[in-house]
Each structure stands twice: as C-alpha cells, then as structure tokens.
C-alpha cells in the first residue's frame, strides 16, 4: 500500500479545498442556505468554481476531460467540505453518479454525460434508496417492464441526494421476466412520467423523491448489462462510501477542534472547564478515535486506488470507524458546549444534524461490521 502520508501535491490540493470552502463563508453559508429554504440547498456559484478548478473531474480519465486522480485525492476534497459543511452534491453527482457512469456506461453514454458533468453544466443524481431499502443495495421494488424496444419504469425512489435540479438520474430497477438481477438506467430528468418532489431532511441538504409513473425509456438507456447492475453499483457505492468517510473525517475534526477551543475559553467555578479531568480524558479519547478514523480512511482510499484484495474490508472498516467516531464526537461536542449547544443560534447543532445523515449514508457502523465479518468468513 502507498504510504499513509500526503504527497506535496495532495497537501496543496487539501489546502486549496479548505480555502475555497472558507472563502465562501464556511459554516455560515450552510446556515444561510438553510434559512433561505431553497430546494436546491447549495450554491451554484461554488459548484461552478469547483468545476473551474477541475475538481468535478478528479476521478475521471483525461480522455473525458477529467484529472485522472483517485480516491486518495477525492477524500481531501470531501474532508474540506465536511469541515465547512459545504452542501454541494459532489459525492452524489461526481463520485457516485459519474463514477457509476464511468464504470458501467458505454462510450456513447459517457461522451454524452461525462464532459458536461465535469464542466459543471449537467448534474447526475443516483437514485439509490426506496422507502423500504434500508442499506440493502438489492432491496429494490422499482420495476422495469419491457415496452416495445425499450422499457417502462415504475416505482418511487426517496432521499435522492442532489435530486432537485439534477439533469439525469441513475436508477436501479428489477427487470421483468429476466433473472432477479438489477438493471441500471440512465434517465433524463425531462422524461415523461418522471416527477421530482423536494424532501426536507434534518441536514437541510438537497434531497428529493423521484416518482416514476410508467416512464418510457429507450433500450439505449440501460447502463451496462440487463440484470447486471448490482456489481457496478456495489463498486460505485464503495467509492462513494469512502468519499463520505472523508467528509465525516472533516466534520468530526472541525467539531472536535471547536469543542477543544470552547474548553479553553469557557470558565465555571472560577476556572477554565478545560482544567477538569473528567472532560480532558473524554477529549483525549475523542482525539484517539479521530486519529484511528483518519488512518482507516486513508488506507481505504488507497486500497480502492490500488484495487487491493482487501479493498472491501478496508471500506467497511473505514465506514464503521468513522460512523462511531463521528457520533461520539458530535454528541460529546454538544454535551461539552452545555446549554448553548442546544440553541439553534450556535453552530454545533448543525454539525450534529449533518453527522446523522452521514452515519446512515451507505450503511451505518453495525451494517459495516456485519459486512466485515461476512467478508472475513466468520
């Protein structure tokens, strides 16, 4: 495995990403977007700037206009976004959606969608979850029925991240009459019978219900093989999972640093509360959990980039670790801030709300421990 340290260009990328997020207002921007209540939930000008910097092309081959970088770089972007609660749909549109297209799509599909995605002109949204899915990728009830030379899609996807304003959706459906496998479809948002309804989640991000009322698509809308969708979907989900871990790492680091600063500035009983050993020890334990999380995320990113045999194990290890650490840190952060932490005016609650969404993205800690055990065969 490549060394678990950042190279000079990676350090530069991490710094630039952090500066971009801060320049646009950091956490204040997320608060403002929430208060404005727009369904889009993010800033188009920030998305455009990310495109200008080439970041929307980080994981894609240079022939499509991408930068040809890997997960080791991708997590640096998401970490910076996590620190500043930046709500742009980078993971869903680029890592997950674009990644799935780059893996399973044919040349025509890739040519049609990847360059405009990389340029920031068009956005993809993978529609993964249904109300009864929980974390099972194959728990899909949306049906694809043969319709002339094409297909007709019926069903309802929920919590489609970045779904509001997306130009195309990646949809997994069961195919009638075939084997039990899943088939992936690339469906333009303009398709007849496709309806997008904004959803409100606790983290105030762009989220949508996508209703498919007998949506007709041509045979050319199938991504990869009919009935063969589960494998590329699994690979894309693993990459998206590690990208999410990067965001979790950024978020927990920021929430922790803010909390340590609070311990150094808040006085009670005539002394700084950071002098209390009951709080010191808990802070030290959080520090260790964050360090372990960072190692796990860096290793998982490199394992995917190097296509190692243990890549899936590393992914589940990272997601389980980050989920547990993130919930520990954000809950402790609120507790240590005391009453002020419960107010909407204070930022720490924003971190806690986003943390929950990240915990449940692509499987929580218990899910990934089960997967780890299954992969290890015990």
């Amino acid at each position, binding site marked *: 495995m490549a060394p678990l340290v950042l190279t000079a260009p990676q350090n530069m990328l991490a710094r630039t990403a952090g500066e971009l997020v801060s320049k646009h207002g950091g956490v204040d921007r997320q608060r403002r977007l929430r208060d404005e209540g727009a369904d889009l939930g993010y800033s188009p000008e920030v998305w455009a700037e990310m495109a200008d910097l080439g970041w929307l092309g980080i994981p894609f081959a240079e022939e499509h206009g991408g930068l040809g970088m890997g997960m080791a770089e991708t997590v640096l972007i998401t970490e910076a976004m996590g620190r500043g609660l930046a709500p742009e749909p980078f993971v869903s549109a680029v890592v997950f959606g674009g990644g799935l297209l780059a893996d399973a799509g044919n040349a025509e599909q890739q040519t049609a969608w990847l360059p405009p995605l990389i340029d920031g002109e068009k956005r993809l949204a993978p529609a993964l979850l249904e109300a009864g899915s929980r974390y099972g990728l194959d728990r899909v009830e949306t049906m694809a029925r043969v319709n002339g030379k094409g297909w007709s899609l019926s069903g309802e996807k929920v919590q489609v991240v970045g779904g509001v304003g997306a130009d195309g959706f990646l949809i997994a459906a069961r195919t009638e009459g075939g084997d039990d496998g899943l088939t992936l479809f690339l469906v333009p948002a303009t398709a007849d019978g496709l309806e997008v309804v904004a959803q409100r989640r606790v983290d105030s991000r762009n989220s949508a219900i996508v209703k498919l009322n007998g949506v007709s698509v041509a045979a050319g809308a199938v991504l990869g093989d009919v009935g063969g969708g589960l494998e590329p979907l699994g690979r894309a989900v693993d990459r998206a999972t590690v990208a999410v871990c990067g965001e979790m790492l950024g978020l927990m680091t920021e929430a922790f640093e803010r909390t340590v600063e609070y311990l150094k500035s808040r006085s009670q009983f005539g002394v700084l509360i950071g002098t209390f050993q009951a709080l010191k*020890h808990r802070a*030290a334990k959080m*520090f*260790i959990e964050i360090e*372990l999380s960072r*190692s796990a995320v860096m290793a998982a990113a490199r394992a995917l980039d190097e296509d190692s045999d243990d890549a899936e194990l590393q992914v589940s*290890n990272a997601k389980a670790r980050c989920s547990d650490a993130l919930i520990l840190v954000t809950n402790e952060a609120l507790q240590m801030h005391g009453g002020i932490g419960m107010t909407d005016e204070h930022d720490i609650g924003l971190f806690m709300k986003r943390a929950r969404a990240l915990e449940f993205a692509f499987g929580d800690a218990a899910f990934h421990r*089960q997967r780890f*055990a*299954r992969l290890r065969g015990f």
Partner: protein
Amino acid sequence: MNDLSVFREEARAWVEGNAPEFLRGKAADPNAWAAGGRKAPFVYPESRDWLFAAADRGFSVPTWPEEYGGAGLSRDEAAVLHEEIGRLALPLPLTGFGYSMIGPTLLDHGTEGQKAEHLPKIARGEIRWCQGYSEPNAGSDLASLATSAVRDGDFYVINGQKIWTSGADQADWIFMLVRTNPDVKKQRGITFILVDMASPGVEVRPIRLISGASPFCETFFHDVRTPVHQVIGEVNGGWTVAKALLGHERTSIGGMGRGGARTSLPDLARDYVGVDELGRIDDPAIRERVTQCEMDAMSYGLTIRRHGDGLEAGHKPGPESSMFKYYGTELNMRREELMLSIRGPQALGWEGEGFEPAELTQTRNWLRSRANSIEGGTSEIQLNIIAKRVLGLPD
C-alpha cells in the same frame, strides 16, 4: 515496492532455512521467546539456536546499524522480516528491554563509546537489561523519585529502592533514574545511569502477582558504585532521556494490541462457540465483539503504520506514543477478556488436569494483561499527556 518484494524473498528463504522446526507455531508460547543474558536459561535450546542464527545475520536487531550488530534494515524491510517470521508463527529471535528500550535510547542519546560498549552485547543476547524507574512513592508521579546518586571521584554512589523492575532477578544490567540534585524542580535533578547488577550492594526480591508469576521485583541499592561514564545524556538531564525511553516503552507495550501471529479470535470462537448453518460464529453477541476487536486492531495497526510513514517522510515525532500505549493496551486487555468469554468455564483453569495447556496459559495471560493499563504510565496518565501536550488543555 519491487525492492521490498526482492527482500521478502530473501527474508523468507532465510527464515525457512534458519528457524528451528520446533519453534514453528510457538509464537503464542511465552517460553519460546528469548531475552538473552548471562543468568537466564533458555527454556528451549532451540530458542538459543534461533537467536544465534539471527544475530549472525544482524536480524536479532534488524534496524540497528551493522557496526552495532544489526542489519541496517529500513523500517519497511524490518516489517517484512517480522511478517515472514510471523507467517510461520515463530517468536521473534530476541525480545526484552535491551532490544526494545535501552538499545533504541542509546542509539539516540549514547556516546560512541557507550554504543560500542553496550549495543553489540544486546544484539547477541549476551546481556539482559531491566528498568529502574518506579519507586514505592513514585508511581504515576515518576518525577518525584528519591533514589540518590552522589558523585565520589570517578563513580556515583547509589542508595535507594526501585519497584516493578521487570525481570531484575534475571537481568545483568539495569538502566535507571536517580536523583542527582534534590534542590531544584523535581524533573531537573534526575540523571539517567547504567548499573551492572553484579555490583556489590544490589539486592533483588521478586514480587508474586495475581497471575502467580513474578515478572517484577523490588530492587534495593546500598552504596552501589557505578562509573561516571555510565551516565547517558547530561547529568541532571535524565528526564529528557527518560521521556524518550518511555516513548519506546509505550510503543512497545502498545504494540501488543496489533494483530500478527497470535491466536486468531475468529478461529477460537468457531472452536469454542461453534458455527451456524452459514458458517458464522453461533452467538451473535460474541460474533459482534470479535468483529469489533478485529476492526479496532486493523485501524490501530494502520495508525501505527501511518505514524511510521510520517516519520519516514520527515514528520517530527510527537507525543503519539501516549496514544499507542493507551489504545494498544486497552485493546489487548479487551482481547484477553473476549478470549475468556469465548472459552467460558474452560478459561478458569489454574493448573493440573481438566484443562488444555492453551487454556491454562490463557488464564495466566488474562491476569497478566490487567497490568497493561498500569505499567509504563497508567491509561489515565496517558490521557493526561494527550490532553496537555497534544490538545493544549490547561492545567
């Protein structure tokens, strides 16, 4: 990467060619591990053969320079060598305080003469070392130690008592902290000094522990004389050396939390608990604990690795050793507790019939492991150090 795979071939061939048949698969047997020394017998003669073969090749202390008996390996190469040794579930050829603590400390802080005098003897397993830090009234508050050393010509004369001196009854030399100035802030009057345990006035009494073993001793010093050239670092500058050495100790104790060539938790659970029709450990609660332990060990191993990669890339070493000591020991203790749960009543054996040898070893190892979070600075002290030196929280 290619160089490492070449070295792996070389290391594998060497291990295959030199490791005694008898020791293969004995990594979990404490009797198979050798720390050398003049007094200490090898329980198995094969352990001596293994040590000597390794010493001839520099592999008893693989990362040390060749002039001091090492092989001058990089950290990555040494890791490969240890993986190859672990692949056959062999003990390392050499263990002990010389290898893990005073050796690295001398490499960092010793004079040329001190290195030449002591390091080759450690590498060849000729001299076994013990550590004289704690005293009856200086435990967690180590800097309050009172054992005194007073200069008399070319010698220091030492008086006082040390406690928890691991293996003092089997050691040939001791590295210790003594008070050379009682009139300054307590950390500033401490000197790090080396003493031959055969010197007149040294008395050792083993302490019997809850595990029934006596790995620790009380060590008494009555007018013990040691030459002034055995002072490591500056006189009254011993606290700096001690902290560096404690870093090695914490990393060494913490290292026990890593995976490696030990009992496999999943295998043990399959044996004792059984498996369901899908081949899973047939107790969801035990299975979950095994999974958690395995994943914690994985992330912990990756963190040690990341720290090492950072050092190699030129990052300055910080107070991370406290994190490794804390987490590695807590993890090891959790693992021991889990192995008790897995074995159930069969983990209750003390000696005699009705228990397998591995079960009897388990009982003793579990009891021994309870000291992990006490020795080398308690878990609470490690958390204090992190809070102060890493997080900058106020006193």
